[in-house]
């Protein structure tokens, strides 16, 4: 502790139980573990020194941003030192001519767009937590967002990274932010590595010019199958909407009871929120086509946002959706499966059955256009046994996705939550191949241990530990 204080200063280390307890989980609350300490770093040099110190003492450690992650990526298993990146939050360089910006990892996602919007630019990846989440965390989790259908996820927007390796060495990947450098795609490897390969200390991102025009459609359906079919038909018609979101009846109950009610009818099965953007000429044609597709699929009511205020409300209602579940349930577990779009009706029906089987309500708020599902399993952790049931139901949802030819995560990451479920899509050999890569970067497995991959004999333990409230500090 003393050595850490010598590096960052006494006030930049938290170690009292009362100060640490708020760090025992991130946005995923089903598993909790106490960190040994929290260290606030303010420069790449400090990160390097802290890492060297911890490496020497063989103390495990985790980098943490805003802690809005949904798979436990920043949650300690017990006894790690958390390196908090939130004080490294400056924009270092803005080069609009070359459409790039260099930020520190603690820079808030939405602030990036806000700080360049007056010049007509924005940063495309827009996870719903963008009001609070950090770009560094986005890199670790390869975050997506509603508008990733057209624009791609975080990895498609990263031009360069500076990272501190577990050895303490500082390396730069993707120098000068020139895209598509020769050699192995290390940027691709690091983006989405969930903080297991290195600690990002500087990020060069792509910024885009604001689209010239934008229109948003809201379509109410009486049948989930019709809504799902409409999704497939829109894509099949050759339209790539900027966003194509779906919300079902339980989810609508949640958002309408919370802070941003739109006045959605309560008796519909689902609605689609569809946004088209690009060059003004052509947007109206695409909207016409979308309206036609919706009508062909028995839409009850379909409307185009009248103005920016209405559009903003529809989006606030959608983006605040997860948090809004608090209004109808004390806890939720959100899953993140991906499936081929054409299998939507079948998979949604199976998820409904899983809810019935475990006697838990499941809300669906998701990126329908990507086939990226977010079943939100509503439960009450204070009811004995309910957390376990929710965890099992979640795991079964992922199994359904994997069996439908999909994947267990689209954008939230694996973290602690889905480590065991990695076996649904990877064989032991495939997992071993990936952990071999980890060993190249992180040989002692001190950096964010126990995350992303099932560990022999550990995954069961972790799942079980999840049921216990807290781990003792070693």
């Amino acid at each position, binding site marked *: 502790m003393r050595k850490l204080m010598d590096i960052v200063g006494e006030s930049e280390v938290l170690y009292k139980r009362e100060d640490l307890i708020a760090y025992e989980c991130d946005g995923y609350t089903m598993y909790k573990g106490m960190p040994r300490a929290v260290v606030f770093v303010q420069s790449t040099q400090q990160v390097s020194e802290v890492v060297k110190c911890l490496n020497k003492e063989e103390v495990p450690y985790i980098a943490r941003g805003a802690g809005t992650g949904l798979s436990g990526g920043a949650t300690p298993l017990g006894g790690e030192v958390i390196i908090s990146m939130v004080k490294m939050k400056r924009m270092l360089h803005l080069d609009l001519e070359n459409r790039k910006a260099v930020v520190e990892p*603690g820079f808030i996602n939405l602030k990036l767009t806000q700080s360049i919007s007056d010049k007509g630019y924005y940063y495309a990846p827009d996870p719903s937590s963008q009001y609070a989440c950090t770009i560094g965390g986005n890199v670790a989790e390869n975050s997506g967002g509603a508008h990733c259908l057209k624009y791609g996820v975080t990895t498609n927007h990263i031009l360069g990274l500076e990272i501190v390796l577990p050895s303490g060495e500082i390396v730069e990947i993707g120098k000068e932010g020139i895209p598509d450098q020769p050699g192995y795609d290390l940027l691709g490897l690091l983006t989405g590595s969930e903080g297991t390969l290195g600690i990002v200390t500087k990020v060069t991102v792509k910024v885009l010019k604001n689209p010239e025009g934008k229109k948003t459609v809201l379509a109410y359906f009486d049948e989930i199958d019709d809504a799902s079919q409409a999704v497939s038909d829109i894509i099949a018609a050759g339209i790539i909407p900027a966003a194509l979101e779906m919300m079902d009846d339980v989810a609508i109950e949640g958002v309408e009871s919370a802070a941003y009610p739109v006045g959605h009818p309560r008796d519909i099965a689902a609605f689609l929120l569809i946004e088209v953007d690009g060059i003004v000429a052509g947007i109206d044609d695409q909207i016409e086509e979308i309206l036609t597709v919706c009508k062909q699929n028995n839409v009850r009511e379909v409307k185009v946002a009248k103005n920016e205020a209405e559009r903003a409300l529809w989006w606030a209602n959608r983006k605040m959706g997860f948090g809004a579940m608090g209004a109808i349930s004390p806890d939720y577990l959100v899953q993140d499966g991906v499936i081929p779009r054409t299998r939507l009706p079948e998979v949604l029906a199976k998820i409904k059955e899983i809810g019935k089987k475990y006697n838990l309500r499941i809300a669906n708020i998701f990126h329908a256009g990507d086939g990226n599902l977010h079943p939100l399993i509503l439960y009450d952790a204070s009811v004995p046994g309910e957390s376990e049931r929710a965890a099992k139901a979640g795991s079964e949802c992922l199994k359904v996705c994997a069996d439908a030819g999909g994947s267990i995560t689209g954008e939230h990451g694996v973290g602690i939550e889905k480590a065991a479920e990695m076996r649904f899509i990877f064989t032991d050999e495939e997992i071993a191949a990936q952990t071999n890569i980890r060993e190249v970067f992180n040989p002692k497995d001190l950096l964010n241990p126990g995350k992303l991959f099932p560990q022999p004999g550990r995954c069961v333990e972790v799942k079980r530990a999840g049921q216990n409230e807290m781990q003792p500090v070693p």
Partner: protein
Amino acid sequence: MNVGEKERETVNLAGMLENGPACETKTLGNYLWDDLPDPNKWADCVHCGMCLEACPTYQETGEEQHSPRGRVYLIKAVAEGKLDINEAFAKPIFDCLDCRACETACPADVQVGGLIEEARGQIRQAMPLTGLKGAVSKTFLNGIFPNKKRMNRLAGFMRFYQNSGLQTVARKTGVLNVMPRHLKDMESILPEAGKPVLARYPEVVPAEGETKGRVGMLTGCVMDVMFSDVNEATIRVLNRNGYEVGLPKQQTCCGALHIHAGDRKTGKELAKQNIEAFKDYDKVIVNAAGCGCALQEYDELFRNDPEMLPLAKEFSEKVEDVSKFLYENDFERPKSEINTKVTYHDACHLAHGQGVRFEPRQLLKEIPGVELVELPDADRCCGSAGIYNLTHPEMAGKLLDRKIDDIPENVEMISMGNPGCMLQIAMGVQKHGRSEKVVHTVQLLDWAYEKDKEQGLS
């Protein structure tokens, strides 16, 4: 939702604890004292983190325990028996500004402010303030604010201090240099104390012209002593709009500062007195955002008191901010021009606490000649936060500096709807060597009406 109910049980702890809670007191985890916090409030929080960047103390510290979600988590941890009530728990809970910015940001409408106040109530019962802090807090909160005579005497003293030359002497002799920096800064901007309206005005001030209705008005403590001119302006504006203004003499301090400080007992006593004082009025108009918010939350205060709850609910619904009241009742548009550039600061307890943002801006915009220039991050706390600037000068100072930095260069006035903010921002304006005039929104309207009169336009 009624989670957590099962965690409650009746325990007889009286024998175990000195000065312990009464035998009948229910407990909740490590909350052992009267007036338990509400488990339903934290049940709404799903730890999503949308509140983080809205929180001024998180923006400054980056520390999770100084964020709304972190504080809610700690409060819940005590109820779960994972934490004790001690200094380390009390610090993040008392470092909260109670500015409610998190409540605006929260997707699930978690009442963080209410929870903080309830937790403070537990802390102050478990760990009563002692020493100098306790004495100062007691003097102001219990001895002066709720006591009209003493408040008037304080006003008298301040007038004496300012008029007698004592202020000049104090400033010249350097006596003030022995005071802590923040108190010195504050002394330097003390407005000229007027004479409290409540003591001077009749109990009923008749409307000008035809009477459209009658309203009660809370005169407040700080407002009436430091800014009695704002109270006078408020009464004139209401009169001018056809309202008879009632100033019931038995009204008292709203109790907000007590509730913020964890002294819910005194808060409730004051609340009862106000509920009684205004019982004959259907509408209670307030020009101080902090007081208005407190009055509107009397029902929260009496959450655990089935006898008072219906009365408190009925009262809370009668309370309205003056700007909202005027706007919604189609206030008379002034005809004279006041040529000035104004920016508007959202008082936390008006914007976040009462959801009043649009109406005061609209009032300003509809005064001929007033050009409203938006203040960036207008609804971020200025650091005043009741007596936070006295108890937490360092954090309050940082927030004040940011607020002043944000004020657009070319405005002549900064308008707002809360006396605490007025004092704090006036202090910032002086400290930063700027020249903007700090005004209450209603004052601008009043000046326009006065000009109408002078020009025979009314």
